[in-house]
């Protein structure tokens, strides 16, 4: 029982990341009809916002020591972070919370990245075939990740969570089980809440603002909305930026869980497309539900008891689900009937 509960928690967590990425992908596909293979790269850039912030905060004043030497004989360097120099203890706290602080960097930066991407590249591909969209965004993804690699190297860069959020939560004690059996890292719980918050915010935005309503109308029928004299293009550009921000924030907050490296976007790319398809192309709730569902299924498939019966099932479960869904219910879990249902 406790094993199952733990795997559900694991699944929720992984699912949060899948859901956030798939949400952005679906938003882009739904509004612009573009298959964006660079979306994983946006997630990765978000993660590297956290790295950048950490590096910025820990920028050091370098002085050469007169007495100490490195093992290879050059004078040793004495390093003091500027931030502690300037702010004293508050600087140390800032450094401690660098992951959270980097959200401040990620939101505007990802918005800019998204808007530039849409205006500079994607917009020219609305009417082009999917294959060409895939190719050009895939090329962009490679370029982005190679730029990150040449800057930050290929090795993962650790991003510790703040000390206060590093502990464990005892779910077992909450739910009346024996204490200590169902424990879960606090940061992962934070990630889940964060993801839930973002998803909620995006839905509210689309549901309750005029802007959101126009965009939803545009998703349903772009031409008609255009005829009403509404400049739908500007709004779609903003939607692309929003999708980039969502992916970026998913990346920022993910860094304490999986140390970011330049390739992490590609690792999530295939998976996030599967999530979108399982959820139903163009369905936002579907993307979210499928994200969580696949996360949980993947966790269950990794249990030893399951793997003993089906060896290797944990490596292919996602694909099996995708095949089953596409064949049996091509519009996905929550896709509208008739949308790309062939």
């Amino acid at each position, binding site marked *: 029982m406790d094993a199952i509960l733990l795997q559900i928690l694991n699944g929720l967590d992984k699912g949060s990341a899948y859901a956030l990425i798939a949400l952005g992908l679906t938003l882009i596909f739904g509004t612009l009809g573009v298959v964006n293979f660079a979306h994983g790269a946006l997630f990765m850039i978000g993660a590297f916002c956290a790295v950048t912030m950490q590096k910025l905060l820990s920028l050091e004043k370098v002085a050469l020591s007169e007495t100490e030497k490195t093992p290879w004989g050059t004078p040793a360097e004495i390093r003091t972070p500027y931030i502690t120099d300037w702010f004293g203890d508050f600087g140390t706290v800032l450094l401690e919370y660098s992951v959270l602080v980097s959200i401040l960097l990620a939101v505007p930066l990802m918005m800019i990245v998204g808007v530039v991407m849409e205006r500079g590249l994607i917009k020219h591909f609305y009417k082009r075939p999917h294959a060409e969209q895939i*190719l050009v965004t895939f090329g962009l993804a490679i*370029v982005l990740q190679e730029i990150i690699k040449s800057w930050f190297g290929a090795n993962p860069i650790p991003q510790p969570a703040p000390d206060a959020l590093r502990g464990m939560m005892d779910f077992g004690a909450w739910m009346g089980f024996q204490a200590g059996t169902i424990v879960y890292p606090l940061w992962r719980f934070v990630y889940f809440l964060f993801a839930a918050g973002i998803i909620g915010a995006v839905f509210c935005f689309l549901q309750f603002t005029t802007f959101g309503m126009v965009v939803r109308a545009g998703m349903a029928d772009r031409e008609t909305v255009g005829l009403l004299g509404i400049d739908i293009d500007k709004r779609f550009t903003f939607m692309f930026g929003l999708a980039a921000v969502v992916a970026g924030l998913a990346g920022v907050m993910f860094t304490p869980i999986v140390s970011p490296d330049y390739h992490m976007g590609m690792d999530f790319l295939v998976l996030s497309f599967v999530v979108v398809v399982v959820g139903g192309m163009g369905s936002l709730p579907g993307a979210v539900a499928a994200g969580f569902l696949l996360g949980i299924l993947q966790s269950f498939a990794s249990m030893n008891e399951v793997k003993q019966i089906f060896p*290797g099932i944990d490596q292919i479960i996602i694909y099996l689900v*995708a*095949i089953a869904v596409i064949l049996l219910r091509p519009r996905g879990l929550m896709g509208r009937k008739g949308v790309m249902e062939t």
Partner: protein
Amino acid sequence: MLEKLRNNDTAIMLAFTAMVLLGPIILAPFGAGYPDLLQRFAIFGIFAVGFNILFGLTGYLSFGHAAFLGIGSYMAVWSFKLLSMSVIPAIILAVLLSGLFALVIGYVSLRRSGIYFSILTLAFAQMCYNLAYSVLTPITNGETGLKVLSSDPRILDGASEGLPLPSVLGLRMIDTWRGSFLGMDVQFNVGFYFCAVILIIAFYISLRIFRSPFGLMLRAIRTNQARLNYTGINTRPYALTAFVISGMYAGLAGGLMACTDPLAGAERMQWTASGEVVLMTILGGVGTLIGPVLGAGFIKYFENIFSKINDNVLSGFLDFLPETLREGVVWVMGAFVGEGWHLTLGLLFMIIVIFLPGGLVEGFNRIIAWFSRPKGGDKATARVPAE
């Protein structure tokens, strides 16, 4: 004049054959005239030509063709292990087995079209890859890759002493005649010529398919599948046939990879490998005859030549520049070659898709049109379908 030549099949075949057979000489000045890369040009040319029969003609974008390549490779190596070091049975078995897999996967995947079809093929291929890498290690030898051992049974050859090497008619695939031509080092390799002959045959078959009623039906599927149904054509078996044929081409390429280098690794089934053949086809020109071969050559050239250029080599190239300037140029160019070759490749994809959606073939067509405009008057620049 050029237009006429381009529509004359005999001329196309003759030109193609000559280009391929003279490959070792033509490519030597570009540093690509060595057997391994030549073999790769031919093998991936076959792969891309086959992929084009599916994607270029029917428009079905498979993201899982690397699986058939891998299956072909494994089958060929198993044939080397169990039957004989001769490449003939290896290739035949590779083509048959990958055809069988293509039949099953295609039958299921073709129930859907568009992006769903792509995701289905991707899912099947990723399953093949993941299983081959881990659980199926007894069959695939996992990460290390399936190898030929001197202790394998090989019931047709009996135990041969020494290193077992794939051969055809007693000629080993790795045999090379090396000579010099106009001061260049040229190498004529058995493996390459074997692949080259098969490439020419494969290209010819593809040419005939393009010109055949079957090819016409496939192009009609891409253009308007519904109309074709209402015209009394059952489109699914046509698409499935195309899928199986292109799967067999992939298996053939995989088998040849094993023949020129008897080791089959799981990573050649990964989705990035499937993506690579898509890129080759689009880069060269989707739905054109020669495009996929050009695209394959282009990408393999980048992978093998650009990744080998290091700062040392760059400095050598730029010897004529003054010291300080040279360092700067080397630093800038260094970002795009050697460990930065991926960056160049990514930029290239973007540039080609943005400016030349018809691929390299469109580029050549534009150049030809540009040259013939002053003389030829109002020569039609309209797209000539399928070459």
